């Protein structure tokens, strides 16, 4: 423990100031970026790392999928550059195996100095719209090597002495299909690092160097103390789970995922040993992504509302053997890493849901079901593209039904676009955007939420459709007798042809009048459906969430369709029989 004479109030004010530094950085980049993927989708995260490049001090992530991949990047800088880290430097890095996720997510790291002393690093990581590679937009579901996925930045100096390093900037310009947007976002990203640097230095000027460093230590100490305190309430023991990833998009073989979680008084050990080998397709989750995925679930379990930092994550240890889907090695492709990463979050969640019911629900639809529908509207000559995640069903809790139509766990404050905006901007008619009650959900004493169906009819001559739907062959899990959820998939209705059900396709042609239907599944149920309160079943029938037939066959509740009332006697008999 640090001994200090600074007032506890001053330390609190500085701690808040360091949190605000991250928040200001977050707003700054969001406000000044040129690409909607930053300012609308919030596909970025920022934070402060301590002087050794080890610990996250404060962070502001736009999506939970970026919970704490920032510390890896600062660590990489310290390891590679050692004494050659100077004021005015900014490093650029995106290699998944060392510090990254996929090549589109580019991290910039700036050391913060006061006098000659390094106080820490400001780090900003976010999705660059275009970094080259085999397809427009760089990420794709059909790559088999990282070299197809874009340009790699192996932690090099983007700025030297406060000035852009022209050699690197020109490399970026020549390797991106959208250099203006990418460089615009990049300069905004650098500016946000400077915002954090200024705020930290302002704190130093006001309260003194030692006091600020003291407050940083204090933040980490408090974070760790808090996590350990909260760990007292966690169930102790060893918990395991197994599951499958549908496939890697290249072959049809399912990939096993396996975890052993060991919770003791002071350690939260997650061991993925036994999970499948790194995949031929792009679904691999590099180690930093795997850590991020696990941290999501760890935070959800321990406290979803805390300001996490390196101290808070200190009890968490993660083992993922090299060469597996959770720790792939060069040249494994990672451009749809979220497919693997979300399974890292999910399998830990699955191992623990039944022992941590206050915080964890049954499984949810999980797949982001990333969708691209785009081309050139030949009626006006305007290019258009819809790039979006799909919302789906979340799992039930021991005390609640699951929520319907929400973005998956890797996404957070992510807004699904308005149908009216799409129809105004693109040659697409949104014929249907509704809950997917047709496929049902994970029934249970508490049932899972419903997925969604969104039908796009193409109004121009031609467009290209890409989708990556996971959790289709192996729908999400229920708990304690609750049923599993329903699959995610897409259906292409081509005129004059039979409907075509697809899971992972790249650049499929669709023509005028064709309909593309994106379908997501319902979440897992919790508890035996026969124990569901008949009144709730009746409510579900009245509201059209489930049919009277499902009420009878799955829930053992007989409902008179004329009067919309429960037949109590028939229900008793039925439930005895089922």
């Amino acid at each position, binding site marked *: 423990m640090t001994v200090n004479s600074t007032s506890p109030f001053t330390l*609190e004010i500085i701690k808040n100031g360091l949190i605000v530094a991250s928040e200001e950085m977050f707003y700054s980049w969001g406000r000044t970026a040129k690409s909607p993927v930053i*300012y609308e989708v919030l596909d970025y995260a920022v934070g402060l790392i301590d002087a050794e490049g080890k610990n996250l001090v404060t962070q502001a992530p736009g999506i939970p999928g970026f919970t704490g991949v920032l510390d890896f990047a600062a660590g990489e800088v310290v390891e590679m550059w050692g004494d050659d880290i100077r004021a005015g430097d900014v490093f650029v890095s995106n290699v998944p195996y060392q510090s990254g996720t996929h090549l589109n997510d580019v991290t910039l790291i700036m050391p913060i100095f006061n006098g000659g002393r390094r106080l820490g690093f400001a780090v900003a990581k976010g999705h660059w719209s275009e970094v080259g590679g085999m397809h427009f937009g760089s990420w794709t579901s059909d790559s088999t090597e990282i070299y197809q996925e874009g340009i790699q930045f192996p932690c090099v100096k983007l700025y030297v002495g406060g000035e852009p390093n022209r050699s690197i900037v020109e490399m970026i310009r020549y390797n991106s299909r959208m250099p203006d947007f990418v460089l615009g976002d990049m300069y905004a990203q650098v500016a946000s690092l400077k915002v954090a640097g200024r705020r930290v230095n302002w704190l130093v000027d006001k309260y003194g160097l030692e006091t600020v460093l003291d407050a940083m230590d204090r933040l980490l100490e408090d974070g760790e103390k808090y996590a350990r305190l909260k760990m007292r309430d966690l169930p102790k023991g060893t918990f395991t789970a197994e599951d499958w990833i549908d496939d890697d998009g290249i072959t049809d073989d399912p990939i096993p995922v396996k975890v052993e979680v060991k919770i003791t008084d002071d350690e939260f050990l997650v061991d993925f040993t036994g999970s499948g080998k790194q995949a031929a397709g792009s679904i691999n989750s590099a180690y930093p992504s795997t850590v991020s995925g696990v941290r999501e679930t760890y935070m959800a379990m321990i406290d979803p509302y805390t300001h996490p930092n390196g101290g808070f994550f200190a009890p968490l240890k993660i083992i993922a053997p090299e060469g597996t889907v959770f720790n792939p090695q060069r040249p494994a492709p990672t451009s749809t890493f979220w497919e693997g990463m979300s399974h890292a979050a999910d399998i830990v969640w699955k191992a623990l849901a039944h022992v941590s019911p206050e915080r964890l629900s049954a499984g949810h639809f999980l797949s982001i079901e990333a969708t691209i529908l785009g081309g050139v509207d030949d009626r006006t000559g305007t290019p258009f593209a819809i790039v979006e995640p799909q919302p789906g069903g979340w799992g039930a809790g021991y005390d*609640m039904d699951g929520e319907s139509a*929400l973005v998956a766990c890797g996404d957070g404050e992510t807004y699904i676009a308005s*149908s009216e905006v799409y129809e105004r901007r693109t040659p697409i008619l949104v014929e*249907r955007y509704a809950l997917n009650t047709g496929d049902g959900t994970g029934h249970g004493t508490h049932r899972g939420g419903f997925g969604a169906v969104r039908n796009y009819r193409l109004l121009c001559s031609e467009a290209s459709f890409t989708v990556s739907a996971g959790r289709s062959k192996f729908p999400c899990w229920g708990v304690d007798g609750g049923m599993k959820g329903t699959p995610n998939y897409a259906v292409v209705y081509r005129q004059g042809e039979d409907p075509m059900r697809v899971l992972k396709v790249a650049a499929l042609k669709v023509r005028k009048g064709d309909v593309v239907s994106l379908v997501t599944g319902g979440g897992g149920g919790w508890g035996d459906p026969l124990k569901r309160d008949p009144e709730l079943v009746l409510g579900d029938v009245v509201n059209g969430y489930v049919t009277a037939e499902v009420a009878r066959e799955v829930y053992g509740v007989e409902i008179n369709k004329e009067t919309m009332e429960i037949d109590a006697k028939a229900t008793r008999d039925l439930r005895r029989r089922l």
Partner: protein
Amino acid sequence: MDSSYRVGIDIGGAFTDLVAYDSTTKDLRWVKVESTPRELSMGVVDCIKRSGIAQPEMEQIIHGQTVVINTIIERKGVNVGLLTTRGHRDVLEIQRANRRDMYNFKYKKPESIVPRHLRIEVDERIMADGTVLKEISGEQVEEASKRLVEKGVDAICVSFLNSYVNPENERKAGEIIRSRHNVPVVLSHEVTREWREYERFSTAALNAYVLPILDRYLSRLQSSLTKDPRKCMAMTSDGGMVSFDFARRFPIYTVESGPVAGVIGALGVAEAVGEKDIIALDGGSTTTKASLVEGLNPEVTTEYYVERDRFRPGFPVMVPVVRTVEIGNGGTSIAWIDEVGRVRVGPKAAGADPGPVCYGKGGDQPTLTDAYVVTGMLNPDYLLGGELPIHRDLAVKAINGVAAELDTSLEEAAEGIIKLANENAAYAIDLVSVQRGYDPRDFTLIAYGGSGPMFAPFIAEELEIGKIVVPVIPPGVFSAWGMLNTDVRHNSIHTHITRLDAPDALETLSRIYKDLEDEVTGMFRSEGGESPTAIERYADIRYYGQEHTVKVYVPSGALSAPDLQTILESFHATHEREYEFKLPGDPAEIVNFHVVGIRRVQKLSLGELPEPSGSQDPLLTDRSVYINGGYEELPVYDRTLLTVGFSLEGPAILEDPTATIIVLTGQKASVDRFGNTVIRSVVR
């Protein structure tokens, strides 16, 4: 002599405030009574009774209420049925599918106020360009509305896709339902003509949800106030007022009427003292609200949400609202020690009941007010001019609890709590200024509300703001006073994507603005025949391909080519201020056209108030106050007795019945010719 009072009445959570002014006799009165939550109109009637103003003496009544917002927050609205486009039944339930509470794996969205069985689809379809793909089926509308009425709905909402472009199908459906059923019918395009179906459907559904309730409330109130309905005006969220009749049809327009009235009041003060750029700071008992106004023109936005905070998405309400931010930091914010032994202040607050510990009304958690009492910054004997006795011993006991846990002295703990709270309040200012590209040092802080004047000098010191004005109007009834400064306002906002570089841009702009102006003039006409005295035009513009829009002022009258250039230049400049970059070579497009019609009302000028007389010595006493880590003897003045020209250097304390001002070292307080207290930082 006949008197004619204009009366502003503001219902808040705890108190109902009245400010009345007679411009002939220059009589200004104010009354504060406890609110009567069960039957709010009783509190209003009681307020008027206590003011001593008789019915015939009232020339105009301007009313801001919390009926609408509370009905929504408490989920006490009526049963609403929805008719919507086939394929889009679940818009209100899917919402935008975002998970604002992103680490909560058991997150639930706010539940749709229209349950699924009351949402019925009908065949009809409008395309994005306004063409009718499918005509509405009258039979289906009849059938569906009949079913809804049989299910016992109290209001029917009709929300169709793309009705913002072409409302024909909604209108036809409305006619059919109105001709057959005696329930209120709300058509989404009548409430807002902006795109984004979830936001528009939500706004319309909430309007229906509160409509019968506000209708009943306003009818009852009106009948007890006056026989002349034209005298009754309702405050709206855009800082204007409309007739009770209009508010009955569009109750959702009044959702934020109370807080906004304070901003309008602050503008009245700013205008009088010759300031154009202000930050209005409203320090309440549980929250602090801030609003930044540039050039005396409050920023009106339709990006507003009910019940939104850091972890809750709330319901979107796409109606014009003066932009304000609110944070959970007020006079009764609770100081607490977290699990790892660190001190925090707020966002939990003791509120009016039980209140701070020192009120002796059963509160047992240390609050900010208790900390102020312990330091001596707040009067340790009484508040509210003597009406509220203070128990300093209880405050000491409460703050001692904090001190013991932190191992500090009592006074250190009290001052520390105050510093933390001021840091929180400064953050609210940061949100409206720095984070939107403004430098707070370019603004004057106008502070009101029970705790605003207390926070303001600390915030000014922290953010290096040079000037604070604490209005002469008692800070505790300031919002009601603001109501006397509002104009009659009507808005028309239409989404109509228009590229500014299109060859026919000029004609398109002229045509749309004329349509909107006709619409606004029509609203005034329906209000009793008077026309607006001013028309203002705005446009929400963005770069082609971008999402962010910025609001730009558009010249009135016939538009010419140079006007287009002016609009463009002003767009580039505003965009650069808000987003740090501009793209002068890129095409720009208008997303929303916005016209405001204003009928100016004779305002209460501060200069008309009688000057404070200087017959009594304003110096009350010297008080020992703990400040900057030690005790100092501070002079304490009665602010109501300070005369024009008075000035002093801090540290000092100024008290009046509803608020206390702490003038800090390095600050100078003076009284301007209106009686306002002006605090400036002294350059050393």
